C-alpha cells in the first residue's frame, strides 16, 4: 500500500477510472444506441431513416452552412480587430483585450436574449438575419482572443526584417504575419464552428422556433416524446460527433497549440 502511494503516477488513478466511466463509456453508448433498435437488436435503420427524410438532411446541410457562414463572418470581423490590437501602441493593450474577452464570461443565453430584445426594440424581424447576427455576436470574442494571442507573440523584428529586405506592407502581411498567425486562426475557427454547428438553444430563441438547426433536431429526439426517438437521436448525435471529430482531425498538427489556447481562454 505504501509503495503505491509513493509512486505519484498512481495519483491519476481515480481520474482515469472516472473518465473511462463518464467520458469514454458514454460516448460508446451513443454508438451502441445509434446502431440498435428499441429492443436492442442491431440495425442501421436509424441512419436509413435520417437519409430518407429530405427534411432532416436539409436541416443538417443548412446547419453546416449557417455554422460556416458564422465562422467566416467572425473571422472577417475578428482578424482585423485582433491585428489592430496586437500591432498598436495602446498604453494598456491588456485592458482592450479584456474588454473583448469579457462578454465570454457572461451566460450566452442572457447575451442571446439581450440580442433578441435588441431586435424587438428596433422592430426588426427574428429569423435568419437575427440568427447570423446573434451567433456572430455570441462567438466573436472566441475568434478574436486566440488570434490576438498568436499575433502578440510574433517577434516584431521579423516584420521589420521583412520590410527592410524590400517587402511591401502587404507582402509582409501575407508572407510573414499571416502564416505565423495560422495557429490562432485555426483555434478561432474551431472555437466558433464547434458551438455554432451544435447549438440548439440560440437558434430557437433568435428565430422564435421558425428555423430548426441540427442541434434542435437532436434535442427534440430526446425531448418529451418518450423513449421512442432515442435511438434515432443517438444516430444523429453520432453524425454530429463525426463532424466534430473531422474538424479537430484536420488540425491535428496544431493540437498542442489548441490545448494551450483553450486552457488559457476560459
Amino acid at each position: 500500500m505504501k509503495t503505491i502511494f509513493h509512486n505519484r503516477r498512481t495519483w491519476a488513478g481515480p481520474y482515469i477510472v472516472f473518465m473511462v466511466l463518464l467520458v469514454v463509456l458514454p460516448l460508446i453508448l451513443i454508438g451502441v444506441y445509434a446502431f440498435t433498435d428499441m429492443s436492442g437488436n442491431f440495425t442501421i435503420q436509424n441512419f436509413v431513416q435520417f437519409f430518407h427524410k429530405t427534411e432532416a438532411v436539409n436541416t443538417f446541410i443548412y446547419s453546416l452552412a449557417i455554422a460556416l457562414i458564422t465562422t467566416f463572418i467572425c473571422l472577417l470581423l475578428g482578424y482585423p480587430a485582433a491585428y489592430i490590437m496586437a500591432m498598436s501602441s495602446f498604453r494598456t493593450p491588456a485592458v482592450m483585450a479584456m474588454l473583448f474577452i469579457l462578454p465570454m464570461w457572461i451566460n450566452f443565453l442572457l447575451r442571446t436574449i439581450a440580442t433578441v430584445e435588441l431586435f424587438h426594440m428596433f422592430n426588426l424581424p427574428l429569423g435568419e438575419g437575427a440568427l447570423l447576427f446573434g451567433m456572430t455576436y455570441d462567438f466573436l470574442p472566441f475568434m478574436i482572443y486566440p488570434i490576438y494571442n498568436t499575433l502578440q507573440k510574433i517577434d516584431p523584428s521579423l516584420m521589420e526584417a521583412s520590410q527592410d529586405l524590400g517587402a511591401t506592407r502587404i507582402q509582409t502581411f501575407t508572407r510573414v504575419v499571416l502564416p505565423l498567425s495560422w495557429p490562432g486562426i485555426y483555434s478561432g475557427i474551431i472555437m466558433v464552428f464547434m458551438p455554432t454547428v451544435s447549438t440548439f438553444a440560440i437558434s430557437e430563441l433568435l428565430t422564435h422556433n421558425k428555423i430548426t438547426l441540427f442541434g434542435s433536431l437532436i434535442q427534440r429526439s430526446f425531448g418529451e416524446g418518450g423513449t421512442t426517438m432515442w435511438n434515432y437521436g443517438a444516430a444523429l448525435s453520432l453524425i454530429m460527433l463525426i463532424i466534430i471529430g473531422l474538424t479537430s482531425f484536420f488540425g491535428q498538427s496544431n493540437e498542442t497549440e489548441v490545448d494551450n489556447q483553450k486552457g488559457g481562454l476560459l
Partner: protein
Amino acid sequence: MIRHRIDRRGIGSVICGHVYLWLLLALLYAPILLIIIFSFTKSKVFGNWTGFTFGLYQNLFNGYDFSADVRVDPNLYRAIIYTGVIALVAAIISTFLGTLAAIGLFHMRQRTRRVVSFMNSIPMINPDIITGISLFLLFVFLGISRGLGTVIIAHVVFCTPYVVLSVMPRLQKMNPNIYEAALDLGATPWQALHKVLIPELRPGMLSGFILSLTLSIDDFGVTFFTKGSNGLETLSTFIYADARKGGLTPELRPLFSIIFLTTLVLLVIINIRAAKQQNMKGDSKNSPLTN
C-alpha cells in the same frame, strides 16, 4: 520598437484602427448596456421606458411586487440557489480530482501520458450537446434517476480537464525533487502532498477552481440533459424555459445587471492581482484570463 512600427504605418490608419475597435466594442456591449438601462424601469415589455425606478431591484430582493400585488416566480430563487450549490460542489470536487490527476499525469511515462491527455481533452472538444446526451444515455443505461447528483457529476466531467490544464504549468515550473526530499526527511506521502505540493500548486489550483465555477455557472447544454424532469432548474435552464414561454420575467433584467457587474469587478480584481504577482515574480503564466 512598437512606436517605430506605428510611425511607419501613419497616423491615418492608426485612427481608422481605433475607430474600428471601438465600433466593434460598441456592438458587443450594446445589448448588455440596454438590459442594464432597462433594469431601471418597470415596464413588462422590454424597450418601453416608463420612468426611472429601482422597482425591479426591489421586487427581485423582496420576492414580491407590492405595486402589482404579485409574487416574483419562486422558481427563480430556487434556480439561483441550485446554480450556486452545483457550481461550488462541482468546482471543489473538480479541483481535488484534477490536481491529483495532474500530479499523476506529470509523472507518467510518455505513452500512457499521451493516452490520458487525449482522454482529458475529449470533454473540452466535445460540444455541450454531445457531452449532455452521452451522459444522459449513461444514466438511463445504468438506471440512475436524474437530479441534483447527476448534474453535479456531469459538471465535474467538463470542469476537471480545465483544472488539470491549470495545474500543469505549476508542476512544470516546480522543483521536482522537493517531494522526494520531503519523503526522505520522513514525511508520509499525505504530509508531503499537504505541506509541500499543495502550497506550491495553490495558484494553479485556484485558477482551476475559479474556471470551474464560471464554467459550471455558465453551462446550459449539459445541465439541460442531465437535470431530469423533477423540476430542478439552474439559472440557465430557467432562463431558457422562461424565454421560450414568451416574455422574459422583468426581474431577470436587474439580476442580469448584477451578475454582469459582479463578473466585471471579479475579473478586474483577478487581473490586477495577477499583474501584481507578475511584477513581483516576473511570472507571466499566472492570470487565469490572459494565461
